[in-house]
Structures are given as structure tokens and as C-alpha cells.
């Protein structure tokens, strides 16, 4: 965590949270920088939503301090709220109102032009469903509408609680595309997920949360490389023969030979995915 202080948008220092006897978060330390896409990964019940609630001022932590945009999360005001967007673990949409009316309410609250509504609907591909009441939308459409609402005020930080949980692959891709497009604008994205692939694909940094502790932190690809104990390369040849070679100079020559002969079907490294890393760290499977 070597970012400069000024470019930090989220700072978490020694956050602990207990509900009665139960300690849900234990001394969490995290920094998230400008324009970073960050995922908090953990199985259900790990405390992801709890941390997100603390960061957005919905819950006051038992111990520690958290700051967003330099302000203590216990003292968030208009100024900070106007710079953050949020997708909670429930939609928070007015089911009887149309997509348009749901967004209209928030343009009025933020005091911004109505023109943003159509812009936002276009961005998430809901223009056709503009007048449809929310209770007639599919789950994926609802989720995109929530995202549109979260982007309404052009936020600096976007908090997304399990944005793709329970969605079909097509809707998931749409949402990932949107999240990526935000990165180009420099928006910081803090998301929680229990989908490892999502985290691997989207994020600059991830933290693995297990029983209230962060058991691993860093760039997902680097983490996977770090846990590549076997450090082998597996090759499948066109004749069906499977080889497992050490990642060394002599193997490189051997592979080069196969490649020149044109008999290679596939080459894989034995790098684990995040799921394997999690299992190794906690001795538990993820779902």
C-alpha cells in the first residue's frame, strides 16, 4: 500500500465491528486509491456488507476509523454524499414507479437536470423500458437501473454490493462493461462479491475476507502467481500426449521445439485461480 496520501479515496484503519458477542470484522486495514477498482471478496456472511455499511455511514463501527474522500465516515455530509454512488444489497427501487420516475426522483433530490435521466438510461441500455414500472423488469434490468441511479450524480466513488449476484451471464457482462468504462473516467469502484472470476477479471486489487480478517490482499494476478507453488507448465500435444514441465530454461527449449514442429494443442501454466488460493488459505471452499 504505497500510494500517496492525497490520492487515497478510501482509508480504513483498524476497523472492528461486533454485533453482541459476535465479532464480524476484526482490525481491518485497507487503502483504496484514486480510480482503482477494488473488490472485497468473501463467502456469504464474511462481513462484506457490514464493511460497506460502515464506509457509507449507515453503521457506526465498534472500533477504528474509516475515511472516504478524507472525511470520517461518522461525519459524512451533503458534500460527501453528493460524490458517492451506491448499490445496496437490496435494490431500493420504487417498484410501482417507472424507470424514468425512479430516476426523476433522484435528479430532483440532487438538483440536477432531467436530461441526465435519458443519458443514464441509454448508458445502461434501458431506454426501451423507460416507462415500464420496476415490478415488470427482469432482475438484470433492475440491477442496471440501480446502477444508472448510482451514476446519476457522477460520483467519485461507487459502492457496489454484489452487483452481479444472481444475474445471467449476459447481464453480468453488461455490468462489467459499465464498471470498466467508469475506470477510464477515474471513478473509484469499491465492490463486494463472492464471485472469484468477477474479481479476477475486473479488479486492480482485491482483499480476501475470511472470518472478519483480510487473509490476502493485492493484485489478483499477482496473488495467483505468488501461490503458484507447483510452478509447472502443462502441455497437451496434438497426438493426445500430456506433458508437465518445470518452469525452467531447459523446458523453454523443449517447448520451443514442440512449437516449431507445430504439434502443440494447448499450453497451460499451473497458476491457481483465486478460488484455489482461498481454499489454501482457509482450508475451506468458497460457496
Amino acid at each position, binding site marked *: 500500500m504505497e500510494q500517496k496520501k492525497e490520492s487515497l479515496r478510501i482509508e480504513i484503519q483498524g476497523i472492528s465491528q461486533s454485533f453482541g458477542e459476535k465479532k464480524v470484522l476484526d482490525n481491518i486495514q485497507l487503502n483504496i486509491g484514486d480510480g482503482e477498482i477494488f473488490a472485497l471478496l468473501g463467502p456469504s456472511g464474511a462481513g462484506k456488507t457490514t464493511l460497506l455499511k460502515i464506509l*457509507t*455511514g*449507515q453503521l457506526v463501527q465498534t472500533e477504528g476509523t474509516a475515511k472516504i474522500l478524507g472525511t470520517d465516515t461518522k461525519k459524512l*455530509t*451533503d458534500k460527501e*454524499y*453528493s460524490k458517492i454512488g*451506491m448499490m*445496496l444489497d*437490496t*435494490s*431500493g*427501487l*420504487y*417498484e*410501482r*414507479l417507472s424507470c424514468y*420516475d425512479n430516476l426523476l*426522483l*433522484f435528479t*430532483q*433530490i*440532487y*438538483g440536477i437536470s432531467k436530461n441526465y435521466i435519458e443519458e443514464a438510461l441509454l448508458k445502461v441500455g434501458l431506454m426501451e423500458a423507460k416507462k415500464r*414500472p420496476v415490478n415488470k423488469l427482469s432482475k438484470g434490468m433492475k440491477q442496471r437501473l440501480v446502477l444508472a*441511479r448510482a451514476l446519476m450524480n457522477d460520483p467519485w466513488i461507487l459502492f457496489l454490493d454484489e452487483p452481479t449476484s444472481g444475474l445471467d451471464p449476459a447481464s453480468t457482462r453488461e455490468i462489467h462493461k459499465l464498471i470498466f468504462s467508469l475506470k477510464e473516467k477515474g471513478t473509484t469502484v469499491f465492490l463486494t462479491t463472492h464471485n472469484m472470476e468477477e474479481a479476477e477479471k475486473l479488479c486492480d486489487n482485491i482483499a480476501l475476507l475470511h472470518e472478519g480478517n483480510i487473509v490476502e490482499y493485492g493484485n489478483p494476478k499477482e496473488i495467483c502467481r505468488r501461490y503458484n507453488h507447483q510452478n509447472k507448465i502443462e502441455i497437451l500435444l496434438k497426438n493426445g500426449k500430456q506433458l508437465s514441465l518445470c518452469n525452467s530454461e531447459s523446458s523453454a527449449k523443449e517447448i520451443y521445439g514442440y512449437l516449431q514442429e507445430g504439434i502443440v494443442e494447448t499450453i497451460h501454466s499451473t497458476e491457481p485461480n483465486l478460488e484455489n488460493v482461498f481454499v489454501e488459505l482457509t482450508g475451506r471452499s468458497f460457496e
Partner: protein
Amino acid sequence: MNPKKISAIFQKQVKETLKNKEVLIQFLMFPILVVIMENSIKVEGMPEHYFVQLFATMYIGMAPLVSMTSIIAEEKEKNTLRMLMLSNVKPMEYLIGIGSYILLACMIGACVFAATGEYKGRELAEFLCIMMVGILISMLTGAAIGVWSKNAMSASSVSVPVMMVFSFLPMIASFNEHVKKVSDFVWSGQINNLMNSLGAIDFDMQTVLVLLANGGVVFVLFQIAYKKCGLA
């Protein structure tokens, strides 16, 4: 407080209620009923506009209370209220936005009663004032229950019996002396007494005190509910 936010909440509530049968029926049932009853039932020796006064009192006890409770409880349950708070809508802005909508809707209902009762001049002014006071106390009671409950189910399990007590007490009191003694200390009882002397209201101390005390108690209950449960 920001009038723009209050007006935004008000507007969304107008649209929502038009599509919410449970709340809509609260606003419409008694005004429609009174028009039908007044025009279809004429019994010899019945006091003039008997149904108007009876139903108006019941309307005050039910519509503002039940609609306020169910709107708040539903918004809590569906997390829409939390979203509003996170967009920095202040609790007071929200309550005033919703409250002014319910007040308006119920006052429109009150006008239907007034028209059916053919009130004019002083009578009309008194009638509307009484309705307004009653609606406000009833709304605040509803808000306290709504804030107290976690979801729509638990809210209606409290609001329905409370609403029954307030709206039926004055009617029962007119048949039973013992109940009347109790009813005179309850706001809906006093509202009913005022209704019965429309056009010649001479505010006595007890009426004013009972209304103030009831309003005060409800306000304190609301404050406790709010401190304990918050809005979101």
C-alpha cells in the same frame, strides 16, 4: 431543510399512491361511502347529516393513520427510505414530504364530506378546521407506528387495532355512558364532540387540553420510536 427535496418526495408519493390500491382505498372508501349512504338512506328521526359526522370521525381515525404507517413501513422494508437518506434527504424533509401529501389527500376527502353535509359559512370553516387537527394527530400516530415497525406486516398488525380503537371509540361512546367517560379523554372522542356541535362550537378547556395532551403524547411516542429505530 430543502424545499426542493420535500417537493420531490411529495411528487413521488402522488405517483406511487395512484398505483397503490391499499393506500388509495383508505383515501376513497369513506368519502364514497358517505355520498352513497347520505343519498340512499333516510330514516325518520335520524339527526341531519348523521352519516357525514359519523364517517368523518371514522375517516380521521383511519385514513391518515393507516396510510402514513403503511407508506413508511413499506419504504423501510424495501430499503427505498435508506436510499433516500443516503442521498442526503433529511428525516424531516421526508416526513414533511409524505405528510403534506397525506394531509392534502385527506383534506380533499374532507371537502367531499363537507359538500355532502352541505356545510356553509361558519359551519364549513369549523368542519374543515376540526378535520385538519384530527388528520394531523392521526398522521403523527401513524408515523410513530411506521417508524417503530421493521416491515409492512408488523406495521399493520399494530396500526389496524390502534386505528379501530380511535375510530370506533366515539361511536360506541354514543351508546354507552361508561365508554363516553373514557372517550372524552381521547382525541377522536373530542373530535366527535366537536363535530356534534358544528356551527356553534364553543371551545371549552377540556377539549383544548385533551387535544393538546393527546398530540403531545403522540409526539413523544414518535420521538421515542424515532430515537430507537431511526428512519432507515
